[in-house]
């Protein structure tokens, strides 16, 4: 199925360009990327680094 220039079915019949935010919200895989990358970096990776940096008692 050929993708139209404005992004497949996301493009409207008049060939008008859709606003970027709407393109983002219409794309579940971009959302999936955001939803995994943001917490992975800010919560998990940062958190694990915090724990790893706890010093050893003398």
């Amino acid at each position, binding site marked *: 199925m050929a993708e139209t220039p404005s992004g497949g079915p996301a493009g409207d019949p008049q060939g008008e360009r859709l606003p970027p935010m709407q393109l983002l919200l219409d794309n579940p895989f971009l959302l*999936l990327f955001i939803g995994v990358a943001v917490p992975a970096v800010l*919560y*998990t990776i940062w958190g694990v680094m915090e724990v790893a940096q706890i010093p050893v008692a003398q």
Partner: protein
Amino acid sequence: MANAAAFRVCPETGLKVCHHAEILIKANAVVAVVFLAIGGLFGLLVALTRWPAVHILPADLFYLALTAHGADVLLFWIIFFEIAVLYFASAVLLNSRLAAPKWAWFAFALMLVGALMANVAVLQGESSVMFTSYVPMKAAPHFYLGLIVFAVGALIACFVFFGTLVIARQERTYEGSIPLVTFGAVTAAVIAVYTIASGAIILIPTFLWSVGIIPHLDSIMYKVVWWGMGHSSQQINVSAHVAVWYAIAAMVLGAKPLSEKVSRTAFLLYIAFLQLASAHHLLVDPGISSSWKVFNTSYAIYLAVLGSMIHGMSVPGAIEAAQRRRGLTQGAFDWLRRAPWGNPAFSGMVLSVIMFGFLGGISGVVLGTEQLNLIMHNTLYVPGHFHATVVAGTTLAFMAITYLVVPLIFRKEIMFPGMARWQPYLFGLGAMGISFFMMGAGTLGVSRRHWDMTFADAVLKFEYPPAAFLMMGLNGISALLATLGGIMFIVIVVGSVFFGKPRDEAAIKRNPVIGPSGGAAVSQYGGEATFNLPGTTILVAVFFVSFVLYYFINWKYLSEVWPLR
């Protein structure tokens, strides 16, 4: 087409319903309800044990029942039901065939086997570790294995959902953007992927440790990663039940979101920031910096709370707008007074919105404030809070939509309609009671997960204040109410599904479940702009004032405890 899918056209909504999707929705929903029944029964036993005058279970069985309760309701009931919601929101709402039905069945089988394995492990008595299973306390290996198998199944189901979105788009089964409810389901599924990935990262090593392959696990590291799963899975619930709120408002009242842009942006805030709140569980743990705690516990400056506050306005706003359009324009609250309060789908949804917002939402933000957590961590305030979110909020919302799923998907008439009318109120009242009284006892310091608040067998002595005992008695009574409401739900659902009258043409005419959609008027954008929404404005203002007051009251409490640095 690889899977020549059979469809039927729903006589009530006009949607094309894929045959595979339909039976998978049924299977997942039925198993979900079975786990709710089992888990709810354990919940009752737990609550009766915590009622000092009753104290029904011995200590070992109490901890066993508490572990089973947490796992069966929080994981199995909710996630099975969510998978049903995902299939509904993708295949059914998009008029599409379900992607890879064989995989969907495989996912279902894995989830079922995993859930049973974990239950067997708990009932054997060697795995009373609570569903959080903090290391280095050790459960039997098949407890962890069960959870892993269950999670793998759920992950596959999420990919079936994403696959269905792709198919629907390629086959152009819908025009333009996906519906808002489907978008909410996308939010839930995205969060589910992160949740399950975190679960795999932590549970697989824990399983290997339990069989002796890995010698040591770090207990703080475990908590950080485990809560990436444990808390995020609650955020799946939030996204799913908000989607369910919108769906019920649309089906029963023809309500249309005030603005697609605002509601979808609110879901985007969930996708990006909601999972950070997993940090709520580490606020009083050693060695983690306050920067990490403050940033993550506040969902990056409360952006996900902003999302919830937006939904908290747009759901009632959409209902008010729909009702006013129908001519209920008198005063601020005529639209609310004359809403279909006898329809359990509607009443359950409204109670869910109110209790989730006022009880669950406010208490959650307070509990998740870095310093305030010091006066609440691991007290009964915590289960009090999450019974408001996950029982009064999610469970009640899922019960409410079941009253639409039974006629539309199972195509059965609701049995015992008189009982169904009252069920949401009874269950809602009970759920509100258990949340409220556990929060009260927690404010007085009572520990969660604790068999004996009198400390009768301890070497030293201590007594909680008498008010705390009163709270636990009232909690027990509320538990009885909630259980009664739960039993009514199960009786109605099981009765209707297995013994109910098939829903024929006549029944559809007599007793429509899809409300008068108002036709064109509803589907025109801009209608709302001409309406003022005074009722919603007042509700939101009351909510905001309660929130601010309660928030600062707790800082006052905190300022009275011993100084700490």
